[in-house]
């Protein structure tokens, strides 16, 4: 039976309005709620549905980074993943290093399908899945909104700028999840209890043979430029005059 690997990144919760810290060295994370990156949660939901439909034998969730990410892995286990792997490092990680880490696990675990979110809502990079597919020399189906498994291939519907594109890819493959792929399930209390007994392996990044060598460096964080305050109009006539005044009509 196929094994599916799902990446879960610990990220600032979707509902938090993020602010740059006073030193310009990062964003405020003190006391800020952390969650699974929403796109990764969708990725996991899809993997669980494939398993429930009999297309996969095991769903493994993995996170790379600080030890605190085990909270998000426990949530993933409570959603229904079979086991979790936490790859720990204190080094800054680029999507390329994460992709190398995932590749090491793909090889170790003989993974046939990797599903990750199309992007994380912190770095907004939108790279990791594509990079993994490149390093693995396997197909990628990014921005997936529908996925159908057919023996050793996948039909994936992708949300692209022009509309919906359908790709047919051989397995093993990498899929990146878009928002409309599914709606992730809610975790129930008994599942949270059960998840505590599921295996969570911790392994250091260096023990996987991956070096967090430096590449592109972030040197400064700044708040965005804010737009200047606008005017409120009372009615449609006021709106038409305001547009006319701006030379837009």
């Amino acid at each position, binding site marked *: 039976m196929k094994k599916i690997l799902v990446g879960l990144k610990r990220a600032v919760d979707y509902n938090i*309005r*993020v602010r*740059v810290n006073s030193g310009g060295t990062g*964003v405020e994370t003190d006391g800020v709620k952390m969650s699974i990156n929403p796109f990764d949660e969708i990725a996991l939901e899809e993997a669980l549905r494939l398993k429930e439909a009999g297309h996969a034998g095991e769903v493994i969730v993995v996170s790379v980074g600080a030890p605190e990410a085990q909270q998000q892995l426990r949530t993933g286990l409570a959603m229904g993943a079979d086991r979790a792997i936490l790859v720990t490092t204190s080094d800054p990680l680029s999507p*390329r290093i994460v*992709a190398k880490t995932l590749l090491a696990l793909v090889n170790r675990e003989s993974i046939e399908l990797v599903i990750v979110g199309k992007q994380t*809502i*912190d770095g*907004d990079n939108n*790279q990791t899945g*594509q*990079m993994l*597919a*490149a*390093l693995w020399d396997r*197909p*990628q*189906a*990014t921005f997936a909104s529908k996925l159908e498994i057919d023996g050793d291939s996948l039909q994936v519907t*992708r*949300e*692209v*700028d*022009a*509309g*919906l*594109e*359908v*790709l*047919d890819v*051989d397995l093993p*493959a990498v899929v990146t999840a878009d*928002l*409309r792929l599914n709606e992730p399930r809610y975790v129930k209390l008994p599942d949270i209890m059960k998840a505590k007994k599921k295996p969570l392996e911790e392994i250091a990044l260096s023990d996987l043979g991956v070096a967090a060598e*430096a*590449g*592109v460096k*972030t*040197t*400064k*964080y*700044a*708040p*965005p430029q804010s*737009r200047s305050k*606008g*005017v*409120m*109009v*009372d*009615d*449609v006539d*006021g*709106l*038409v005059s*305001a*547009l006319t005044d*701006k030379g*837009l*009509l």
Partner: protein
Amino acid sequence: MSKILIVAEHDGRQLNTATTKCVSCASEIADATIDVLVLTTAGSEVAAQAAAISGVGRVRVIEDPANEHAVAAMQAPQVVALAGEYSHVFGPSTTFGKDLMPRVAALLDVDQISDVMTVIGSHEFERPIYAGNAIVTVTAPADQIVVATVRTASFQAAEQGNAVAPVENAEVEVEIPDHTRFVALHAEASDRPDLQTAARVVSGGRALGSAENFEIIYKLADALGAAVGASRAAVDAGYVPNELQVGQTGKIIAPALYVAVGISGAIQHLTGIKDAGTIVAINKDEEAPIFEVADIGLVADLFQAVPELEKALSSRT
């Protein structure tokens, strides 16, 4: 001196404007030569269109039947085959570029810089993170190829028309994988302006309530000669197709006029429109966050205000 290669986006017939934005971005790097790479099938006119962009030094063409559709797994090795001649490889931050460029970067074993919004130097750029809630400055190693996607809304389109750069066929020996097959593209035909490049955009949100009600958005857009967009909520609800979505995970646009109708203004939506010239918001909730960024705000029932506005605009012409 920088040598920049830009991977052109096109549909086989027409060069995408995103490519001209990439040329503008590349032009901001001092002392640079700019080549455009067109991956295409034989006999395409796209190369000639790319050659007409001001600032382009040379157009390089790889003709291969595999390029009938832009499939990243097939195109990445072709880009990589030429990348070694360059200091920078850029693509647009569209679904095309987002799919392809990280695959190119990984094959070159370099990090990729996503969504370049400002050029500070040849290896120093600004880009947004956290849906635009923070802007970071990033520095790429001087001894590596810089692979980046360009946030097209941050750059004006380079002029197209007068220039005639030489067009050369590039002969490359690459193995193109057969593990990925294009099946179909489902795109809704529309006579309206293209959302990504339109000077005016009218967008509708969840408050429209149904696909039928969205008709008033189309009518207002037609009265303005505008493209139609939508919030994620409206797309999720099935009122309009996904290609109309504006925001962090949809299209990032910079029209001169953006009219947001019945859109509350989640940060994920606002990041898609913050470069618009003038933002107009029509919403019945005066507390809606969209009013914090709107240049002109109208608190009103959209089902009254929008038809009234459409009528007022139509009677002017």
